[in-house]
C-alpha cells in the first residue's frame, strides 16, 4: 500500500468521526428543544385547569379574594411569557400562588369534601408533578448538551455544528426545584 492510500484512509476515517461528533451535538441540541416544548405543554395544561379550580373555590370560599386574585394574575402572566427566563419566572409565581390557594382551601371542610374539588386536587397534583418532571428532564438534557459542548472531543466540533451552551430552567423558589413531589 503506498503512502497516498494511507493518507486517504486516515482522512476518510477523520471525516466519519467528525460527522458522528457533529450529529451528536445536533441531536443533544434538538433534545433540549423538545424538552422545553414539553415544559410548555405541561404549563399550558396547568393554566387550563385554573379557571375550573378558581370557580370551585369561589363557590365555597368567595371571600378569600386575595389568594384567588394572586392565582388569576399569575395565570395571566404565565400565558403571555415567551422567553425562557420569563416562562420560568411566571411558572414559579403561579406555583406559589396555587400553593397559597390550596393552603387556604384547607380551612373549608365542605370545599375539601366536594367531589369536584377532590378530582381537581388529583389533576393539580399530577400536573404539578408533570411540570416539575418536565423541568427536571429539560435541565438533564441541558446538562448533557453543556457537558458535550465543554468536553473533548465534542468541543472541537461546536463551531461546525453551530450549537452552544444552553440556559438551565431555574425556578425562583429553591424548594420547588428540590421537591418534585408537591403535596396538596
Amino acid at each position, binding site marked *: 500500500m503506498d503512502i497516498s492510500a494511507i493518507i486517504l484512509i486516515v482522512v476518510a476515517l477523520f471525516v466519519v468521526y467528525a460527522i458522528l461528533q457533529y450529529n451528536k451535538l445536533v441531536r443533544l441540541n434538538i433534545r433540549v428543544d423538545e*424538552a422545553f416544548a*414539553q415544559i410548555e405543554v*405541561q404549563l399550558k395544561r396547568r393554566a387550563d385547569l385554573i379557571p375550573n379550580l378558581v370557580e370551585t373555590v369561589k363557590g365555597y370560599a368567595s371571600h378569600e379574594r386575595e389568594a384567588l386574585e394572586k392565582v388569576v394574575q399569575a395565570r395571566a402572566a404565565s400565558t403571555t411569557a415567551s422567553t425562557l427566563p420569563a416562562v420560568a419566572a411566571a411558572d414559579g409565581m403561579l406555583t406559589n400562588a396555587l400553593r397559597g390557594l390550596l393552603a387556604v382551601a384547607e380551612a373549608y371542610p365542605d370545599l375539601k369534601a366536594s367531589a369536584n374539588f377532590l378530582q381537581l386536587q*388529583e*389533576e393539580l*397534583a*399530577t400536573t404539578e*408533578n*408533570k411540570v416539575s*418532571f*418536565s423541568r*427536571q*428532564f429539560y435541565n438533564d438534557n441541558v446538562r448533557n448538551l453543556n457537558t458535550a459542548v465543554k468536553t473533548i472531543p465534542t468541543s472541537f466540533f461546536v463551531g461546525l455544528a453551530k450549537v452552544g451552551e444552553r440556559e438551565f430552567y431555574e425556578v425562583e423558589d429553591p424548594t420547588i*426545584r*428540590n421537591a*418534585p*413531589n408537591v403535596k396538596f
Partner: protein
Amino acid sequence: MTDFRAMQSANKRKTFALLFFMGVLVWFIAYIAIAAFGGTGAGVIPLAVLITLVSVWGSYFASDKLVLKMTRAQLITEADNPNLFNVIHEVVIASGLPMPKVAVVNDPAPNAFATGRDPNHALIAFTTGLLDSMDRDELQGVVAHEMSHVANRDTLVSSVAATTAGVIALISDILMRMLWFGGSRNRDHHGQQMPIFLAIIPLILAPIAATLLKAAVSRRRESLADATAVSFTRNPAGLRSALEVLARDTTVVQARSNAVAHMYIESPLDASAASKLFATHPPIQERIAALRAMEANPQQ
C-alpha cells in the same frame, strides 16, 4: 457512593463484569467439550447455541405478549384507572421514554413487573393488590422502578444472561448423557488430549456457576433499577416506602413461576425456595437501606 448516579454506574460496571465472566465460562466449557470429546464435542456446541437461541430469543421478541398470557395480566386503558395513568404519564415525562402498555393482574399479592423487547414495545403490569395498598408517592416509586427496567433494557440483558446460561447447561447436559450412555463409543476416539473423567467435574460445576452468575446479573439489574428510579423521581422516599409495604406483606403471587420470577419488583417466590446466591432479587432490606442512603444524600 450513595447518590443515584454513582450507584447507576457501579451497577452497570458490575453487570458488565458478570456478563464477561459468563462469556469466559462459555469459552471454558467449549474448551472442555473439544478437549475431552474431540469432534463430537465440537459438534455439540453449535447445536446447543442454536437450540438456546431459538428458545430464548423467540420469547424475547414476543415477551410482551407471552408474559400477558403467563401471568394472566389484562391490558387496561386510561379510562379504567385514570389515577394510575396520571402517575405513569408523570414518570414517562421524567424519563423521556415512550408511553408503555399497561396491564393489571387480578391478584391480592402486591407486585409489579415490566417486560417488552425495547422501549417501544414496553409493557408494565401491576397486581390489584399493589394498586390497592400504595399511596400516590409509593405508586410513583414502583412505576419509576418498572420504567427503569424499560430504560435499562433489562429484558435484553436478562435474555443475554439466559442464553449464555442456557448454552452452558445444554452443552454440559448433552456431554454428560454421552458419558453415561455412549461411553464406549468415546473410548474408541483417538487424538483427544484429555481423559474424559477429568471433564466430569467441570461439566457438573459449569451449569451451577452459570445459574449463579445469571442470578447475580438479575440482582444487579434490580439495584440498578432502584437507582434509575430515583434519577427519574428524585424521591427515594416513595420507592423506599413502597418496598417497606412489600416487605411487610406476606401474601404470595398466585400465578407464579420461576420463568417470570426475575421480572417482578419483589421476588414472587417464597423466601425459602431459594438461597441468597440463587435469588433473582437482592434482599428487600438491603434495597431499603440503599434507598435510605440516597435519601440522606439528596442530589439535584
